[in-house]
Every structure is written in structure tokens, then in C-alpha cells.
């Protein structure tokens, strides 16, 4: 069943004197429970595309359909995880995770019950009373993911969440992310510039062309999980994606 559909999304990057067509009509169908990784040359607008789906930006043309209905603004059914986490430094870990529940007016005891489940899932229980400055970058991203999952969104939108992590931490989170997806059955859109990451995580990989970008190719990834970055049978597909991507990156120059 189609969960999310984008139809001819066009977006201009506006500068003072001129404008640049970043997204040149992006069509994408996301089935319920899909884990779609979006890869593309830097500056192609894949993050902007994600932000449009989140409702944080409006497209200049085209529309986003969620369960068949066009979206106009942000909604708790589509929750974004930002690259730098965007955690609130004035709140403890647990209060960060409960933020959305508090906004929804859920009473304190109930909030604690719900957040406990996700703090456990992300192995954060020990840190629930810490402030974010006391956490490593990897821990911060765990909090950001927990904070998003607590909202129980239909769609999780992740904008290069692991880009700032060291290799070991990232590998660990790549495995956990697969487990979370299997456990929660969320539909996930995941922007990354790392093809290996995309192949490990995704059920599908969408390759963006250079500006004005469209989805050049949508590839299915069909390997058993949990996949690891060093799995040799993933290499073939990685090469294939890279060969799609390379000419797009070169166009940039």
C-alpha cells in the first residue's frame, strides 16, 4: 500500500540575483514499511526533498500525498531526525525524549512509561538524567532517534543522521537501525551521501541526478538482515549505485 507519494516536486534555491532549480520534478512512491535511502551528489537537494516531505518547506510545484491526502504543514505522523540531532540542551535526556508527548498534553506518569520503552530500546536508560552536553555524538543521535520514535510516527525522515559519527559508532548504529525498523515496522526515508550505508539499511535506494534533480534510478535491495558494511555480497550493488552516481557528481565540476 502506498504510504507516501510525491508528484513532480519542483524547488528553486533562491539567491539574491538569480534562482537555481534544485529539484526538477521528483516523483517517488513509498510503500508502507519501506526503508528508502536517498543518495545523490552533494547539493542536489535531497535534504530539501526530505524537508518538503516533513512540511518544513513548501515545494514551488508539485505535491506530497500522505495516505492519499496532500500535506501542507508539519505533522506528528512525519517526524524528522536532523543531522546534528537538534536536541534541546536545556532538557535532560528523558525530557528531550518526552518533548513531543508533553506538547500533546500527555500526563507525566504516562509520558515516563512511554519514554522508558524507547530509552530502553536505544540503550539510554543509564543516561536519562544526563544533559546533552555530557553525551557523545553517537549517544546524541540515539536520543534524537528515541525522541522521534516516541511520537510513533508513520514515517521517519532521517537527514544524514550518522554523518558526523566515527566509523565504529556508525557501524553499531547501522545494525541497530535495522533492528528498530524490523521491530517498529516504520516507513523510513533516509538521506545519506554514503552508498555503503544506503545499501546496508535500505529496502530501496533512490539515486538522485544532479540539478535540476530527479530520481534517476530506484533500486531494490534484497539481502538478508542484519547486514553489515563489510558484507561482500553487498559490494556488487554498491558498485552499481556508484556507477550511476559518478557521472552525476562529475557534472558538478
Amino acid at each position, binding site marked *: 500500500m502506498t504510504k507516501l507519494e510525491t508528484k513532480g516536486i519542483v524547488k528553486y534555491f533562491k539567491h539574491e540575483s538569480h534562482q537555481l532549480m534544485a529539484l526538477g520534478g521528483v516523483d517517488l512512491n513509498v510503500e508502507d514499511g519501506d526503508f528508502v535511502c536517498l543518495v545523490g551528489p552533494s547539493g542536489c537537494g535531497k535534504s530539501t526533498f526530505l524537508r518538503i516531505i516533513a512540511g518544513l518547506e513548501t515545494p514551488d510545484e508539485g505535491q506530497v500525498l500522505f495516505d492519499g491526502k496532500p500535506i501542507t504543514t508539519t505533522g*506528528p505522523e512525519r517526524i524528522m531526525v536532523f543531522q546534528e540531532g537538534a536536541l534541546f540542551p536545556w532538557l535532560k535526556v528523558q525530557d528531550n525524549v518526552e518533548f513531543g508527548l508533553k506538547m500533546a498534553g500527555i500526563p507525566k506518569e504516562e509520558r515516563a512509561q512511554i519514554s522508558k520503552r524507547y530509552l530502553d530500546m536505544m540503550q539510554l536508560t543509564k543516561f536519562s538524567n544526563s544533559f546533552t552536553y555530557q553525551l557523545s555524538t553517537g549517544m546524541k543521535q540515539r536520543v534524537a532517534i528515541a525522541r522521534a520514535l516516541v511520537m510513533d510516527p508513520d514515517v521517519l525522515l532521517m537527514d544524514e543522521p550518522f554523518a558526523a559519527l566515527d566509523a565504529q559508532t556508525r557501524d553499531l548504529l547501522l545494525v541497530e537501525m535495522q533492528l528498530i525498523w524490523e521491530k517498529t515496522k516504520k516507513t523510513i526515508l533516509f538521506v545519506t551521501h554514503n552508498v555503503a550505508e544506503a545499501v546496508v539499511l535500505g529496502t530501496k535506494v533512490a539515486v538522485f541526478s544532479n540539478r535540476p534533480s530527479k530520481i534517476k534510478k530506484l533500486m531494490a535491495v534484497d539481502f538478508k538482515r542484519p547486514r553489515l558494511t563489510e558484507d561482500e555480497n553487498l559490494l556488487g550493488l554498491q558498485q552499481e549505485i556508484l556507477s550511476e552516481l559518478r557521472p552525476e557528481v562529475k557534472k558538478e565540476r
Partner: protein
Amino acid sequence: MKKNIFAKKIIFFIILILFWQVISMAEIWPNNIFPSPYEVGEDLIFSASDGSLFFGIGTSIMRLIVGLAIAIAGGVVLGIFMARVESVNQTIGSLVLGLQSIPSIAWVPLAILWFGLTDGGIIFVTAIGAIFAVTINTYTGVKNIDPHYVEAARNMGAKGTQLITNVLIPAAFPYMISGFKQGWAFAWRGVIGAELLFSFLGLGFLLNVGRQLNDVSQVISIMLVIMLIGMAVDGFIFKKIENKVMSRWGLR
């Protein structure tokens, strides 16, 4: 390291007081014009023992607290409005910058005409002296909030006043605290200045009494008290809050 700095300070002040004592003993100026630190100290002990000093301090601080509280409440609201609504910034914002340039003491005549010789007048001068510093810093703070905080919060369903109290104010807090600090400094000057001109009671009033009695020791001793209170508030209250906020917000 920290102990070292503290020792340096103590030694500096001891030398300064000794220097003062030596000059006064040289009798370049008559004693009633240039009293010795010993006489000033005596005066302090005298006014402390009859309670008039503490009553003065209490009165001034009460006025300061009320005035500053009004300034903070008003300044924060105004600053947030200016930061979030562009036309408020373009209109009221320019007025705020203009009013900021009026020294708080220049409000005294207006305060006397409007409030008479009352506590209300002093509090008015105090509040108006401090409010614009709070406003401008709050404005800057809200303008500089990482947009991802607001986007994440909106995405999780925060809106309207919820967004203001749960995100905008805490996110802008490091700037706001500098606004409060500046505001307090202006307020303290405002209280003393206003008391000097038209009040009964308070430290400014005691200064004025000293002048009328030709009692230089009293004038200097009250000035010292004003300075010490200023140093204490800056050094203990604001520094503590600032340190805590800076490290928690990850700014250091």
C-alpha cells in the same frame, strides 16, 4: 590557579588601602576632606551598629528587585515580539533603540511629576533604565536560535505559547542572561541615582545625607557599600548562573 588569582586580588586591595592610609597620614588635605580608611571603616561600623546601613541597603535592594522584575518581565515579552514579528521590530524596535540612549537619571523629572516623591517613582526609574537592555538582548537571543530547534519542536507539535515557553525562551536564555546582567547594572545605577535626587531612605538617600552633613567619611563608606554589593551580585549571582548556562547549553 584559582587560589592564585584570589590571593593576587587580596594583596592588591590591601596595598591599595595601605596606600590610602599613608596619603591621608601625610595630611596633604584636611581630614574632613580626605578621611583615612580607618575613619571610613569606623563610620561603616557605626551606621551598621545603629541599623541605618542595613535599613538603607534593604530599602534600595527591595526597590531594585521590584524594578528589575518589572523590567525583565516587560523586556522579555517585548524582545520576543520584536524577534518574531517583523513589523513590531521595524516600528517599536527603533523606538527601543532610541529610548535606550536616554540615561535612566533623565527619567527622574518625569517620575516625580507622574508618581510624586514615592517608591513608585523610584521603581519606575529603575525599571525603565533596565528594560531596554533586557529587550535588546532577548531580541538578539531569539533571533540567533538555531532554526533546527524550532523546526524540531514544531514537527513534534509545539505551537503558539507552547513554542515560546518550551523552546524560544530556553533556547535564547544564554543571551537573555546577559540582558539581565546588563539590566541589573542599569537598574542599580538607576535606583541609587533616583534615591539621591528625590527619596527618603535607601543608599542614595544616605549618600545625600552625608553630603548635607559635610560628612565625607559617610559618603565614601556608602559608595564602598554600593560597589561591594555590585561586585557581589556580579561575581556570585550572575557568574554562577552564566557558568551553569554556558556549560549546559554547550557553549563552552
